[in-house]
C-alpha cells in the first residue's frame, strides 16, 4: 500500500502537451478512477505513475518519496491492461504462479496462494488447462488474479473491462470492488466509461485535454459539477445543458435559445446566473430525472411547453425527447403516459437546475464552493 502525490505534472510529446500541470493526492488504499474521453491524457498519467513515462515537469511521490530513479520492476506495481497480457501458451496455474516465481516465493507458499486466488476468481477447475482455452470472461479474471496475487502496493488498471459483454461487465465491477476491499491496495483505474468510474471509485479525477477538471467522490461530482464539461460527462442519461444568450427584459432574466425559444429564469438558478456580471451567454443545466410533468409543485418552477419527439426505452424507464422549437429537453416518462407527437407542459425546478458560464465553462452561483 502506498499513497501517491502527483505534483504539478506536465508531460509533453514534442509540441503536444498530453498532461498539463496536473496535481492529485491519492491516499493509501484508495480506489481512484482517472476518467475522460479518449486522448484526454488519462493513460499518459497512469503511465507516469507506473514509471513507463517520465514527467516533463513536476514530480510524482510515493509515500512522500521520489521514485523516479527506480526501475519499474522495483516499484511493486501491478498492471491489468485491456488486452490481458496473458501467457496463452502456459497453463492457468503457471500464469498465476509466474509473478511469485520471479519473486522467489517458496513453492508450497506459491501453491497455496495460486489455489486461493483461483478459488477467489472461480477458475479453480481450469488450473491445469492452457490459458488459451479460457473464455474472454475467464481470461479477464485470470488477468486480474495474476496481478493481484503478487500483492503489489499499487494496482493500475487500464480499461480492464472494455472488452467484456455488458452483463459480465456489471458482474466484474462488483467483483473488483470486493477485491479492493479485501486487499486494501491503492488502485488506479483508467476508464472513459463514467458509469464504471462512478460505481467503482472512492474518488474520480476527471481529465479533459490534459487538464484536471474536477477531483472528488462520485456523488460529489455528480451533485456538484464545477464546470460544464464535468456536468456533461457524468451521468447517464446526460444532463440537459441548454445553451443560450442571457437577456434582461425589464427585470425578467431570460436565456434566449437558438431557434427562438427561451427559458424564463427564476429562483435559485436566476440568482446563480446573475452572480457573474460577465456572463453574457450561459448554459442551463438540469438532469432528466428532475424535470416533471403535470401540475406545478413549486412557485418558482419554470414552466415550458414542448412536443414529444422521440421516446426511448432505457432500461426500466422511458426517456422522452421534448422538443421546444429547435431545443431538446430529455426527461423521464415515469408514468408511461407520453406518446410521440404529444404537446406537453413540463417544469424545471430552479433549485435543481445549474448555471454555467458558456464561454469559460465555469459553474456559476453561490451553491458552488
Amino acid at each position, binding site marked *: 500500500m502506498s499513497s501517491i502525490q502527483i505534483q504539478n505534472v506536465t508531460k509533453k510529446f514534442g509540441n503536444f502537451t498530453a498532461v498539463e500541470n496536473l496535481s492529485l493526492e491519492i491516499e493509501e488504499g484508495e480506489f481512484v478512477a482517472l476518467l475522460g474521453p479518449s486522448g484526454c491524457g488519462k493513460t499518459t498519467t497512469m503511465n507516469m505513475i507506473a514509471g513507463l513515462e517520465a514527467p516533463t515537469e513536476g514530480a510524482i511521490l510515493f509515500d512522500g518519496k521520489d521514485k523516479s530513479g527506480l526501475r519499474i520492476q522495483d516499484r511493486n506495481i501491478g498492471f491489468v491492461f485491456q488486452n490481458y497480457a496473458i501467457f496463452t501458451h502456459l497453463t492457468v496455474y503457471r500464469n498465476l504462479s509466474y509473478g511469485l516465481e520471479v519473486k522467489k516465493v517458496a513453492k508450497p507458499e506459491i501453491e497455496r496462494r495460486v489455489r486461493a486466488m483461483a478459488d477467489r476468481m472461480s477458475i479453480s477447475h481450469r488450473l491445469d488447462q492452457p490459458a488459451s482455452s479460457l473464455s474472454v470472461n475467464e481470461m479477464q479474471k485470470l488477468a486480474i488474479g495474476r496481478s493481484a496475487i503478487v500483492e503489489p502496493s499499487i494496482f493500475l488498471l487500464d480499461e480492464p473491462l472494455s472488452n467484456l459483454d*455488458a452483463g459480465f461487465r456489471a458482474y466484474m465491477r462488483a467483483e473488483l470492488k470486493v477485491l479492493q*476491499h479485501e486487499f486494501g491496495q491503492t488502485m488506479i483505474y483508467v476508464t472513459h466509461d463514467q458509469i464504471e468510474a*462512478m460505481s467503482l471509485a472512492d474518488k474520480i479525477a476527471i481529465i479533459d485535454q490534459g487538464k484536471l477538471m474536477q477531483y472528488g467522490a462520485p456523488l460529489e461530482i455528480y*451533485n456538484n459539477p464545477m464546470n460544464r464539461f464535468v456536468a456533461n460527462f457524468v451521468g*447517464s442519461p446526460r444532463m440537459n445543458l441548454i445553451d443560450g444568450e442571457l437577456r434582461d427584459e425589464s427585470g425578467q432574466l431570460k436565456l434566449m435559445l437558438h431557434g427562438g425559444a427561451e427559458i424564463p429564469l427564476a429562483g435559485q438558478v436566476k440568482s446563480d446566473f446573475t452572480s457573474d456580471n460577465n456572463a453574457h451567454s450561459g448554459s442551463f443545466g438540469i438532469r432528466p430525472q428532475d424535470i416533471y410533468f403535470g401540475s406545478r409543485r413549486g412557485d418558482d418552477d419554470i414552466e415550458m411547453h414542448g412536443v414529444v419527439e422521440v421516446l426511448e426505452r432505457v432500461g426500466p424507464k422511458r426517456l422522452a425527447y421534448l422538443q421546444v422549437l429547435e431545443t431538446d429537453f430529455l426527461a423521464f416518462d415515469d408514468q408511461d403516459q407520453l406518446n410521440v407527437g404529444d404537446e406537453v407542459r413540463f417544469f424545471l425546478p430552479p433549485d435543481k437546475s445549474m448555471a454555467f458560464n458558456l464561454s469559460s465553462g465555469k459553474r456559476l452561483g453561490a451553491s458552488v464552493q
Partner: protein
Amino acid sequence: MTAIEIQSVVKTYPEFKLGPINLAISQGEFFGIFGPPSSGKTSILKLILGLLDPDEGKIILSQRNAAEMDVAERDISMVFQNLALFPHMTGRENIVFPLVESGASEAAIAKSLDFVSEVLHVSHILHKNPAQMSGGERQRIALGRAFAADSRAMLLDEPIAALDARLREEMRVELKRLQRENNKTFVYVSHDEEEVMAISDRVAVVIDGAIAQIGTPDEVYGHPNSLEVAKVIGTPPMNLFQGRFSDDGLFFESDGFSDRLQIIGTTRKGETATLGIRPEDIWLTDDPGKVGLDVTVSSIEPLGGYTIVNATLGQQIVKIRAPGQMQFEDGARMRATFDERRIHLFDHAGERV
C-alpha cells in the same frame, strides 16, 4: 406493407448454422437485431443484401423473390461498422459515389446532395477528406452515402459502435429522427442491448443462430419468453434464482431464500424452475417485520440518478436498483421484497412459464 420478408432461411457454415429465420419487416419500420457477438446478426444482413445466398428458404423484397434479383436490383444500402469510406475522396465525393456509379444525372445528384446535407448537417464538412473528420462526422458521411442512394431499405451494422459513449447517445436519437422523418426502413444490428432497445420499433433477439424472440422493446424487456433472452436483455442483468415450485404449486422455493415466495398465476407443481427478477423490481427495507427475504449489503454503486446495491442472498449476489442516492453500510442486513407482478418464471427447459 412488408418491405423485407425472410422465410425459413437457413445458412450452414462448417461450424455454425444460422436459422431457420423467419422475419417480416414493415415499410418505415426501425427494426433492431440484437445478439451477442457471433450470434449470426451480420449474416442476416448479408443475406438481405445479397452478399450471401441462403441454403434453404427465401427472401422476399416487396413481393419479389430476391433470389431472382442481383445486388443492384435489390436496391438496399448498407452502412458498415468500419464505415468503408473512400479515404482519397472528399465527403461530397463519398456521398454521391453510388449515384455517379448508377449513372444518375447531374441535376439528380445535386438534388440528392442538397437533401442529404440538409438532414445530416454535413454541408460544412463536404470538402474534407475522411482523415480530417471526427468520428461523428465520418459517421454522418457514411450515413449520407447510404441516404443519397435513396434505396428501399438501409441496413446498419453496428454503425456507431466505434464512437464515444456520449456521441453514441446523440447519434442514436439522430438516426431515429432521420428514419422517421423520411419514413425509411432501417434494419439495425448491434450487440449493445441498451442501444437497440432505445432505438428500435421492434427487436429480434438472435442467439446461437436462431431468433429467440421478436417484439417491441417493451415486450422483450417486460416479458422475455425464455431464460436466454432474459439473460441478455437488461443492464445490470436480471437476477436469476434456481429452485422449484412447491408441490401445491403456490410457492417458489430456493436454497438461498430465507423464506419461500408466494406465486400468483401459473406454476408447475413440484417442478424445478428458475425465478427471475429485474434489479428495479426489488425493494429494500430495514424493517425486519416486513415480508421479504433476508439479504446482506455487500457494496453499493452510486450512479447519481439511482443506486445499484449489491447484496448477498444465500450464496448469490443479487443486484438491486434503488431509486435516488441511497447510503447503506457494507454488511447491513436488510429485507428484500420482490414486486410480485414483475416476477419472471422459467421452466427446466428455460421456457417462460
